[in-house]
């Protein structure tokens, strides 16, 4: 059974796509503002949208990096259209990362000889910067949900509480391993996508636990 909050979250999808009329969007945001958890999520989405809007216009690099990047972006968009709303953030994050990588690669490569460009490595700083901002946005949602479940944890039976927190630790360990890999290979978009997907799953788990705890 969907809660009122879940019903609202369903409508976020239309809102993020810009499909809601202005008055409907305003009403949605007004209702969401009355719930601290939803309000935090809305703020985080708005922050992420602002990051997207602030990105420089796409500039194709001069060397053969672009076809690969473009195909990954296209694949990401195709998947996005098939998958549920919760994956949208992962795709957006990947798009941020890939676009920044493309831009950075173009800037790095445009004044170098072709051979030197093919060894383009110094995108790490750019990718990590974009990734850190997305990380922060998802972290805000996660922290709010974690606070909510911790506030409700007395409602959960001890064994279920232990199970939920054990599984959150499982995800934390996986995230830590991906983070370590990202430090080793910072420009790897697959790793970045995996990292964001794991963070999304962590949020999904917290949402699910909160939803059930709220019913108890």
């Amino acid at each position, binding site marked *: *059974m969907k809660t009122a909050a879940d019903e609202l979250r369903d409508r976020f999808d239309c809102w993020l796509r810009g499909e809601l009329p202005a008055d409907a969007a305003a009403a949605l945001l007004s209702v969401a503002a009355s719930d601290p958890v939803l309000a935090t999520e809305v703020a985080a989405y708005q922050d992420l949208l602002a990051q997207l809007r602030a990105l420089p216009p796409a500039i194709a690099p001069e060397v053969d990096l672009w076809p690969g990047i473009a195909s990954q972006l296209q694949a990401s968009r195709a998947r996005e259209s*098939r*998958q*549920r709303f919760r994956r949208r953030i992962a795709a957006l994050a990947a798009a941020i990362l890939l676009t920044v990588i493309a831009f950075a690669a173009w800037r790095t490569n445009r004044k170098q000889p072709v051979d030197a460009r093919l060894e383009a490595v110094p995108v790490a700083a750019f990718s990590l910067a974009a990734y850190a901002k997305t990380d922060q946005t998802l972290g805000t949602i996660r922290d709010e949900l974690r606070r909510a479940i911790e506030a409700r944890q007395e409602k959960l*039976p001890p064994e*279920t509480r232990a*199970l*939920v927190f054990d*599984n959150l630790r*499982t*995800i934390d360990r*996986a995230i830590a*391993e*991906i983070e370590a*890999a990202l430090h*080793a*290979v910072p420009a*790897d978009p*697959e*790793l970045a996508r*995996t990292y964001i*997907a*794991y963070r999304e*799953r962590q949020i*999904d*788990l917290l949402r*699910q*636990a909160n*939803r*059930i705890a709220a*019913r*108890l």
Partner: protein
Amino acid sequence: MTRHLLFAALLAFGLHQPVGAQVQIDRRRPAPAKGEVSIDNSFGTVTVHGWEQHEVLVQGTLAAGAEDFSFDSDKEGTSISVDVPEEWLQASGEDPAFRSALAVFVPAGSRVEVRSVNAAVEVEAVTGRVEVTTVNGGVRVAGPASAVEVETMTGAIEVHALAAPMDIHSISGSVLIEGATGEVRVETVSGTVHVNGSGLTSLEVQTTTGEVEFRGALARRGSLEIETFSSPVKLVLPRTTPAVFDLKTFSGNIKSEFCAGTPVLRKHFEPFRELHCSTGPDDFEIRITTHDADITLAAE
């Protein structure tokens, strides 16, 4: 004063039943063929059977300490509810005395919604939408429901429904789906997920530590997507299954009886493993990801 009179009138008509001792129930009310039937019973059992009659029949036994039993209806639907003392809901364990057993017969086309805490719920032969929410109670849905949505915390879930879109959520409760043909979505934290079906068009499973297995045949077009962190995934498919496979694991292993000769790649970095291959047109996509658990594709 008006409310007291109304309540007295309801009692006189037998629509609300204050309960002081264990009470047998046998009530019926007319109901539309495709109306909504909502049932609330926190402890005990709820069984719902679809039938051809245009009425709802409730039979069973109410717990001795239940505060109220209501059985109401209007042109939109029927509501059945057993109210229990708040302290029962706060109790650390379930006392057998909390249990009410309801057998409810509904027009087969009804939309059925059941809410419970610890009650075991069973729904059979309903062709409308079925929605069940429990905390610890197990749930079993069988029959040609038009859609099935179940959420539990620890209760096991079993669904035998043909052609129904299914949306199943649990924390630690196991999930068994038999006869899956349409769209199936399952989310658990640690509950195991077993899906058997044929002509499946869409399966989406997410779990953190629950083992996942799908056994059966796929439709010509569609997708199967499974994500776990630390639990293995196994697919058992007909040997001739045409599909595009996209398997990834960070530190697990991939074993496949499909795509003979296609190597498991480690192209990104160690220990990441990937298998991308195709056994036919790209109309059915299979995507599986785990963090540190094995992925197995078996052919039969």
